[in-house]
């Protein structure tokens, strides 16, 4: 590649980076600017709207509820999806396309249609509890497409069949296979799936609002009716939190792959083995 072409490519990259960066940061910057305005045009900059986040009634509870929902949804998603995907890959590969279709289907269903569909179930559940945390049951459906893709990529990166059979032959039950073999070998995929779930749950509004629960986004909307500055401050904070999560996602550790060349181990088969007998005095001697 000649020098002028390299420079052009570099300029193109920087331009794309700047434009996309501006696309994300200008609105956030504008929101931050708005949230620090005083009460009049000539009033000095103030962080009053930000300090009110902690004192606005209901906002703190909504933030805590959303964080709890994000955590519960991530755990439910993992417990439901990961074993299912492992089982399908190992035992029922012929239905993998059906499972994929089911997992991706929420992408095509509008949240409002989903709410109409699951509302009767939530009404029945409300007989037992009125906790906002039941929303996680619906959020698991919403995060399915994203978590499925992330976990699918992770499972494809390991030789699941061989590893699980090796573990089984060593005496591991299915629970041990999942917990000690599958999960430790796909940390990036699991983290990706969780972060995507968290980001989605923290930004979710429609489902909670239509179900008459007050999560972070619903609370922001309510606060916005009385204090636009505080509402925008919370929105900026949640956006920065979500961006930070996605940034972490980009830098998570990738799994180790490939086989490195190692020093050859030369064996002198003519020498008797100096063994104490602790091993082969027992091996196979049952």
């Amino acid at each position, binding site marked *: 590649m000649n020098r002028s072409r390299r420079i052009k490519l570099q300029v193109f990259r920087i331009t794309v980076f700047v434009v996309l960066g501006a696309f994300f940061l200008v609105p956030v910057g504008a929101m931050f600017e708005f949230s620090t305005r005083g009460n009049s045009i000539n009033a000095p900059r103030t962080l009053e709207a930000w300090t009110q986040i902690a004192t606005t009634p209901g906002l703190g509870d909504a933030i805590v509820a959303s964080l709890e929902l994000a955590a519960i949804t991530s755990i439910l998603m993992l417990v439901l999806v990961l074993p299912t995907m492992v089982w399908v890959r190992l035992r029922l590969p012929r239905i993998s396309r059906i499972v994929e279709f089911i997992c991706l289907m929420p992408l095509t269903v509008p949240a409002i249609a989903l709410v109409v569909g699951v509302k009767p179930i939530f009404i029945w559940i409300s007989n037992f509890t009125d906790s906002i945390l039941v929303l996680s049951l619906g959020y698991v459906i919403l995060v399915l497409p994203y978590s499925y893709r992330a976990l699918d990529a992770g499972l494809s990166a*390991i*030789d699941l069949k*061989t*590893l699980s*059979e*090796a*573990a*089984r*032959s*060593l*005496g*591991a*039950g299915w629970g*041990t296979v999942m917990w*000690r*073999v599958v999960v*430790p*070998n796909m940390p990036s995929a699991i983290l990706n799936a969780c972060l995507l779930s968290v980001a989605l749950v923290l930004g979710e509004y429609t489902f909670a609002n239509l179900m008459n629960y007050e999560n972070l986004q619903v609370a922001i909307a309510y606060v916005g009716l009385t204090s636009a500055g505080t509402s925008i401050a919370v929105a900026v904070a949640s956006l920065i939190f979500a961006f930070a999560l996605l940034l972490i996602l980009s830098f998570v550790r990738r*799994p*180790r*792959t*490939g*086989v*490195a*060349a*190692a020093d*050859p*181990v030369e*064996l002198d*088969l003519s020498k*008797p*083995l*100096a*063994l*104490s*007998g*602790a*091993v*082969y*005095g*027992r*091996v*196979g*001697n*049952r």
Partner: protein
Amino acid sequence: MTTDGRATPRAGVEVRLENLTRKYATTTALDRLTLTLAPGELVALLGPSGCGKTTALRLLAGLEQADSGHVVIAGKDVTNVPANRRNIGMVFQAYSLFPHMSARQNVEFGMQLQHVGAAERRERAREVLDLVGLGPHMDKFAHQLSGGQQQRVALARALAIKPKVLLLDEPLSALDAKVRARLRDEIRRVQLEVGITTLFVTHDQEEALAIADRVGVMQSGHLEQLGPPTEIYSRPATPFVAEFVGLTNRIKGDVRGGAVTVRGTRIPLVDPDVTDGPATALVRPEAVSLASNGEMEDGPLVGTVIAVAFLGAMSRVTVDLGDTIVLAQMATSAASDTPAGTKVRLALRPDPVLIQREEPAATAP
């Protein structure tokens, strides 16, 4: 313990596969396979892809369920016992080390599940890794080990749980030739040292013949022949075994009185109780010798060398007899006297041969 400090080899357990059948949709992978492994014996199952050898091994391991038949280990029927409760060590074709664990942690994995104490675990892991020559590498992860080293760790891991039976599912097929040969010898050495009953599955006849006490040649879910390597090679029971194990010349002949006459040479038959008539004799290349000196008048065994393949100490000479091509295998020093283009006379050693009644194909493989 013996006086030289080596543990006394002990007998393993008897393993019996009884009338095992496994079908996949319309395909019968295994058809009433019956096989008994004597205690401490290493049996190699040899055959082409799809012959059912891996299926047999997986049924023994409990990784698949048989449609019918029984698996008996040490006198106990384990047909319906899940894989994780059979106490069978297994080395896989693919690299199967847990990537997130070091070699030592891999070896300790099975022992942890058996609730072996930490101190004993560490000691036993060190010993089995020493056994396979990887003691100095015990803290390395899979990605820091070569393919051969990974398979050694897998072997150590399988042995560390004190299994009743050791299963080897083409453990050498992913390795290069030199490492394969070395590890093959090492597996045999370890197996003899430990004295464990072992089933070794491979499609590589050299591997099977080199290390097994007995070799079972399989085809289409059946066991064609089971016997010591020398018997499999020199007295194949069926034409399939003769052609699958080693190279075989197919030369037209005429059966009369329990022997076959091939181009004027009378050769005894492995099975003399056959009807007279035309047949194809299956003759090993090493049973064919060449002479290139003296007058070469035309005759049924006079031909021209068309190629000489150097195999190291041995060479394989391809001779065109006009209507058929014959392979001869001999010492390289002898083959050097007969370069391509030389007119030679063949001689067939009267070792017992098999015959095939089907219309023969071209001739040499």
